[in-house]
């Protein structure tokens, strides 16, 4: 007998996880499948983490609407799901007189889109607000509703809350094809067997084009990976308190300087088309490009303080904007196509996709209702997901109490980020278990500090092995084929 669901969501990025959380509110069975060993391993894991104010997207586009609807949803969401979120505001910084008109364009665009709280700042005002900025700054656009989040924390919190409310999550499960009855989708084939369903929701990020093609939808739609490289800095050496964008160019929002919620300055991303959808390699040229770009905003950056580098892949699509009279070919696709039945189709969800994710989830629910789906609210739906203790953020007194309750919180495993054995064990046994090193890293920030795991790695591998009751040889960095260890050393005397 085929396992059957009302909804199957393909892809455990921030969009799929938000949709799962939104659907968990209703009386329906929901399955989320993710091809990787953990959720949040695609675009949602490597981006700038900004909740955009909304002056960037082209007025009239779906991107603009999702951004504007999504942005104000974050306060309530962060409260309900207990993830950190800060509405810090952001700046678009003009350097040199020639960049000033660019600010006016953005201001205009923002007004049309309906962005509240924007203001033009003079050179003197900008210099007073950010001491590290290029002295050649000529002015800035200030948007008070810009925010920053931790995209892992967001995605994981949303997916966990979905699981608490009955959604099933299957990791290491890859969509392969649809099972059709005529033009109706009745199920999917995966590497782990077939599943029946009434609806499939395509939130597969970079692969959403291939998936819709399998259903015969939009054969002309293609996604090209557009790479963005980043550097992360040691927080002990440099603090930039503000989110600083350059004036955007044709290539996008440009190389910015910002700070993560953990206090590390990050710079990036550039914007270069890549060949392959899995190619997350940094390049010499790309790193040089972001270095020069960021130096233009903040000249005091020092290479010595770099502690990490990574790449994010934007799912750059060619979806046409549906608003009449607007010629724009890179809009979001969020639709229920009529050619097949039982398919919610998403595509090209690049920036501001993180910002938009709760609005996209709501949009999907609305589309389903419009399509006649009777979504009945569950009485027992619990919108609240509580955060687990984070030793690093606690006062001395709180730490004392926590360790009294569970001594494992007294053993610090990651020296730079102060992550304890207790936190690691709790994540391994969480509603969506973190069973790889990188999964633990995303959840606890272990290994993200200045030593980049040099100290904690052997210790964490041992804890994972012990908690899961497996040999350390089976522990992986990020799933199948990424085992840390190959074999035991020669046993003396054996």
């Amino acid at each position, binding site marked *: 007998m085929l396992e059957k669901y009302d909804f199957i969501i393909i892809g455990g990025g921030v969009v799929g996880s938000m949709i799962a959380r939104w659907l968990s509110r209703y009386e329906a069975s929901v399955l989320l499948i993710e091809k990787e060993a953990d959720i949040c391993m695609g675009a949602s894991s490597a981006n700038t983490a900004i909740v955009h104010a909304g002056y960037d997207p082209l007025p009239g586009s779906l991107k603009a609407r999702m951004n504007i609807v999504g942005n104000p949803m974050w306060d309530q969401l962060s409260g309900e799901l207990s993830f950190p979120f800060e509405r810090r505001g952001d700046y678009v910084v003009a350097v040199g007189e020639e960049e000033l008109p660019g600010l006016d364009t953005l201001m205009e665009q923002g007004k049309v889109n309906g962005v509240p709280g924007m203001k033009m700042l003079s050179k003197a005002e900008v210099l007073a607000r950010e001491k590290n900025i290029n002295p050649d700054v000529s002015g800035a656009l200030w948007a008070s509703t810009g925010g920053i989040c931790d995209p892992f924390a967001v995605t994981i919190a949303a997916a966990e809350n979905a699981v608490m409310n009955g959604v099933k999550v299957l990791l290491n499960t890859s969509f392969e094809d649809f099972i059709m009855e005529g033009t109706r989708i009745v199920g999917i084939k995966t590497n782990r067997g077939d599943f029946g369903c009434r609806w499939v929701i395509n939130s597969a990020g970079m692969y959403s084009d291939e998936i819709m093609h399998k259903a015969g939808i939009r054969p002309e739609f293609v996604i090209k990976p557009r790479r963005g490289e980043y550097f992360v800095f040691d927080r002990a050496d440099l603090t930039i308190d503000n989110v600083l964008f350059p004036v955007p160019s044709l290539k996008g929002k440009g190389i910015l300087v910002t700070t993560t919620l953990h206090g590390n300055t990050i710079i990036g991303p550039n914007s270069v088309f890549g060949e392959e959808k899995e190619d997350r*390699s940094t390049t010499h040229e790309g790193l040089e490009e972001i270095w020069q770009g960021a130096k233009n905003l903040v000249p005091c950056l020092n290479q010595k303080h770099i502690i990490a580098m990574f790449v994010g892949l934007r799912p750059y699509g060619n979806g046409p904007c549906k608003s009449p009279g607007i010629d724009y070919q890179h809009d979001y696709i969020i639709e229920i196509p009529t050619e097949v039945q039982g398919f919610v189709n998403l595509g090209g969800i690049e920036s501001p996709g993180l910002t938009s994710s709760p609005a996209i989830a709501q949009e999907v629910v609305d589309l389903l209702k419009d399509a006649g789906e009777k979504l009945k609210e569950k009485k027992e739906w619990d919108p609240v997901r509580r955060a687990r203790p984070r030793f690093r953020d606690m006062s001395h007194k709180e730490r*004392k109490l926590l360790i009294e309750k569970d001594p494992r919180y007294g*053993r610090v495993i990651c020296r730079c980020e102060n992550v304890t054995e207790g936190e690691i064990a709790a994540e391994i046994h969480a509603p969506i278990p973190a069973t790889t090193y990188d999964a633990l890293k995303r959840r606890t920030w272990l290994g993200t500090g*200045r030593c980049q795991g040099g100290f904690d790695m052997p210790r964490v591998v041992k804890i994972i092995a012990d908690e899961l009751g497996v040999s350390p040889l089976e522990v992986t960095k990020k799933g199948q084929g990424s085992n840390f260890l190959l074999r035991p050393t020669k046993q003396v005397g054996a």
Partner: protein
Amino acid sequence: MVLKNIYDVVVIGSGPGGLAAAVAAKKEGAEDVLVIERDMELGGILIQCIHNGFGVEIFKEDLPGPSYAQRFIKEVFSLGVEILLDTMVLDITPQRKIYASNKRLGFVEIEARSIVLAMGCRERSRPQIRIPGTRPVGVYTAGTAQRWVNVEGYMPGNRVVILGSGDIGMIMARRLTFEGAKVERVLEVMPYLTGLTRNYVQCLLDFDIQLQLRHTVKRVLGNNCVEAVEAVQVDEKWNPVPGSEEIIPCDTLLLSVGLIPENELSRKAGVKLDPITSGPYVDDNFQTNVPGIFAAGNVVHVYDLVDWVTEAGFQAGKCAAKYAIVTHRKESNYVPLIAGDNVRYIVPQKLDKRNLEENEIRLQMRVTQPIEQPVWIEVHDKENLVARKAERYVRPGEMVTVVLKQKNYKDVEKAENLTINIAPR
């Protein structure tokens, strides 16, 4: 173990620097000496350095790391140094309060009359030298790999490229070869060897491992695990020489590209760091700019021979003990003043007995409740009345003063503390 609230000397880190400091501090006469170590065992980096080459200067012997450490571990135990293992020090204040955490005792606060920082160093990692490419499993610092092989008993891979001709890299090249791995290459960006020549001979030449100077890793390949690295020759300015690229298939890349003194705690304590060494500025006693905070070993600058680390530890430990003893002596001259019946507070809160030998000491206080009748203000050492003064009344709004005179010295000298009570006559 029951932790004391205050120690003469607290040593942070139990590598050769820390162990030597603890030994020297005890020998110098410090009574309570505590070593705090985050690992499960004493010995620091020496635990995983199972190769020999340690102690040639001090012991005139060629010992493996653990044996070298063992000599000091024995001494530390026989001298009665207290030890906290599996305990991470999280914070130090300039006033020498130490915050640490472990499973058994929880989150603890310890005061120290002096501190020796001996946290060693950490290894420079891949992003710090900006090697582009993918982020697969299999790129490790040499020290991490060393821990895996020598302490945990596992091999990270079978085909290895090592970047950097530092000592740890070369020693790991030999170690991995012993374990049956093939070390494909050791690459060094400099035109010369950065480690000791003896290691080049014993670890590379003797095992036919190829060293390529003026070469570096241009990028890492492989999505899940390392599949190869692209090596390239560089010119004087470290720019890649076009056409010299070579793909070397391998499953592991080890980095032996430098060590950085581990000074996050030092910074929290207000210790100033030298931008060149990345370690604290120290004087010839190994004292930092913060009085009572000393530092020794790799935390100060990176040593190549352990013997010099031990020597530095001795000196730092000895001076830390001296500092602690002087501080202790000062403390024992202090007599706390305790607010007794109807006294809200007294200023000063404690007095230095020796001052009373030559000077009067004025004590000022406020009362808790008004007493509208004649009172005695009495200074007691337990039952013994040291001094008293009469007042017609006391009121919270009016400060009360009592003066201790030189003639009171004899009584105060014996006192552990003094209590002031105010009561009707």
